[in-house]
């Protein structure tokens, strides 16, 4: 059965909310019903076939083709199946994702993996600010699952993150891991200023010593056996992190301004 494909017909002027297009929400629908799905476009609700050429039958495998940064909430609250996005994605990609996989072949805007609870988000490109963050006003960010970014991530990556794993192969903007509560963020490239700002607990894994602000404390060099276990758990992930096997790190603790139980580990 071929994947259910939504090919964007024209350039969008307003933001388009595609929350209703997920494998679980469309699982028992026929093509007529799927075409008639109402989507918020700016302040009006219009049928899905106004925006997309819709083809294919397999609702458990959804593909967005020719996608754009105006398409928000791809994979919203998804519980099963798989979504592949070719092109760019708008804000709130994989918002509250619970299970299943979302793959983006392009760049995502802000708030990717916002309030994500489980599943896998794979981005073959860059993401904007607040990757894995909390819904605005909420006190807890991403709660579980795995995010892999092949390119760069913006500012406030993992803001208020509560649990789960974010692995970034490129660079990350400032305030990485800010107000983090728990969970793990790995970065192979560079990080900008104020990494771990207001971090309470959690782990930041780096390959180069970053510029640190005053309330992050150097705790010396250690051999941490748990790292071997952690890297072993990365073996099957589609990421360069799966190749790392090292447990000697320089450890920094912080942010002392907010409990200070978080750690920044720099691989030696």
């Amino acid at each position, binding site marked *: 059965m071929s994947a259910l494909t939504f090919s964007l017909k024209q350039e969008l002027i307003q933001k388009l909310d595609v929350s209703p297009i997920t494998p679980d929400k469309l699982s028992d629908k026929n093509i007529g019903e799927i075409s008639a799905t109402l989507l918020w476009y700016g*302040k009006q609700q219009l049928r899905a076939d106004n925006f997309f050429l819709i083809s294919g039958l397999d609702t458990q495998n959804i593909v967005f083709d020719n996608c754009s940064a105006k398409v928000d909430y791809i994979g919203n609250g998804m519980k099963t199946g798989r979504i592949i996005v070719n092109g760019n994605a708008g804000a709130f990609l994989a918002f509250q994702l619970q299970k299943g996989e979302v793959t983006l072949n392009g760049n995502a805007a802000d708030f990717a993996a916002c309030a994500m609870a489980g599943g896998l988000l794979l981005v073959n490109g860059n993401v904007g600010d607040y990757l894995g963050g909390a*819904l*605005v*006003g*909420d*006190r807890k960010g991403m709660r579980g699952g795995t995010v892999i970014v092949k390119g760069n991530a913006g500012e406030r990556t993992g803001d208020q993150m509560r649990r789960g794993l974010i692995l970034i192969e490129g660079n990350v903007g400032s305030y990485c891991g800010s107000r983090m509560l728990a969970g793990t963020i790995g970065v192979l490239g560079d990080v900008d200023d104020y990494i771990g700002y207001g971090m309470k607990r959690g782990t930041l894994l780096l390959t180069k010593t970053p510029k640190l602000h005053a309330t992050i404390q150097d705790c010396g060099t250690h051999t941490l056996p748990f790292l071997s276990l952690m890297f072993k758990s990365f073996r099957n992930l589609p990421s360069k992190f799966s190749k790392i096997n090292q447990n000697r790190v320089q450890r920094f603790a912080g942010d002392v301004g907010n409990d200070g139980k978080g750690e920044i580990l720099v691989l030696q």
Partner: protein
Amino acid sequence: MLIKLSGGRVYDPAHQIDGKVLDIYIRDGRIVSRPRDDETIDQTYNLSGKVVMAGAIDMHTHIGGGKVNIARMMLPEDHRADPSHHSALCRSGCGHAAPSTFTTGYRYAEMGYTAAFEPALSPVNARQSHLEMGDTPIIDKGGYAMIGSDDFFLRMLAAKKDQNAINDYVAWIMHASQAIGIKVVNPGGINAFKFNQRALDLDEQNVHYQVTPREVLKALSRAVHELGVPHPLHVHGNNLGVPGNMETTLKTMGASEGYPLHLTHIQFHSYGTEGDRKFSSGAAAIAEALNKNKNISADVGQILFNQTVTASGDNMRQFANSTLGSPRKSVIMDIECDSGCGVVPFKYKDQNFVNALQWAIGLEIFLLTDDPWRIFLTTDHPNGAPFTSYPHLIKLLMDRTFRNEMFAKLNLDAQAMSTLASIDREYSLYDIAIMTRAGAAKLVGLHDRGHLGVGAGADITVYTDNADREKMFAKPDYVFKDGELVVKDGHVVKVTWGHTHTVKPDFDKAIEKDIKQYFDKYHTMNMENFKVSNDEIAEGGRGGIAVQACEGRREKSL
């Protein structure tokens, strides 16, 4: 435009009309007497079989001002979970416990309410409050200026200033903040909190000013009375929520030495310390005292089970309660020289012993207080429950069987501690019309509202009689605001802008010299900027000021 409301069953307690079939005529927004036979009636509504009352008045509801806005900001989950989409007429909005301003106005009107009063308008924040109320459509509104913990007033008391000077200051505050009443919250206690006192009883001194809550109450209740302000001093007493606080409340009733007092959300102040859990109902004693002391009125502040948010000027008690919040977050704030506030989200649960008993205590007070002219229907929105639960509360009061069914579902230990099931009283439609219309208008000092007599503003609500009172009061057939049909079948059909009711008592302008000096020395703003003008309130066609009559200054009463 002459409108006839024909043949409805009218409940107008201000004129002792209890369910009589009458015609009502409206011209230019006012109720008029029967026109001459040769005058043409432009529009007739056939209301035969319908129940007709004046528009309802909520005399204590937190709908505008700093702490409501903090509650809104603090509760994105409340807003996300309860969106209301825009329509051709109405703007979008959201929020169950702390709805946005426009939504507040629509929802009140759709329930047959045509006026609502913000009881804790902090004078330094009056502009913000009025701007929010200015964004609240359809209903009339107004505010009670909250003083009694403000530095200027406490200095006056500490310096044993003459009562006339205090009266002048109180009147100045009412003018400056465009208020219709004066409220005191935890008298002197908001200020005492700033000097690290964590409790303050009626006769306990503020460590900094050496004044007691009793002195605050006496000076302010007397000032309000002597200025001729119709609404008595509006009192949120000391020790809110503390087991055993009924003693404080009973003493507070005597603290004004005969001057009128209105004790607000009295349910939260009617707790005893009996039983294994040292928490019991003080409703019987409180209701008995209310029955006896004719200078005292009260509103209940009923709690109903669900998620809500508590927002109060009482930083002292909110700080103490902040660990009980759900979801667990809170804001406790110091507001300049004037006041403070605390916002704590709260979820009342029927299986929680304390919450269940609070529910029963509120209803006991309603049912044991004899005079419906002196007890008012409130949930202290949003503190006990959002105002949208009023129809449910009315059903609890009017339908004993329903009440007892709900009671039987409560936490069993709480049931054992309450006498509610043994109370047979059921409120009548006439009683409800007193509590929510005639009595409320009289208490607030709205001379042309809350009744259906000739000359009154044509704020009128029409219901279909229904044995299920919750259904009946949730969805009126028609609501008229100043003679215009604004709600039909429970939905807004026209958006208008209500008045802001105020009083403007006379005072000696010389007091401004002292106040200006004080502002120049201590305040973050200039005295002139502190004052909210009439024009600001009328700006953008958003209603305007309606000045209600003051009874005139009374020198040395009692």
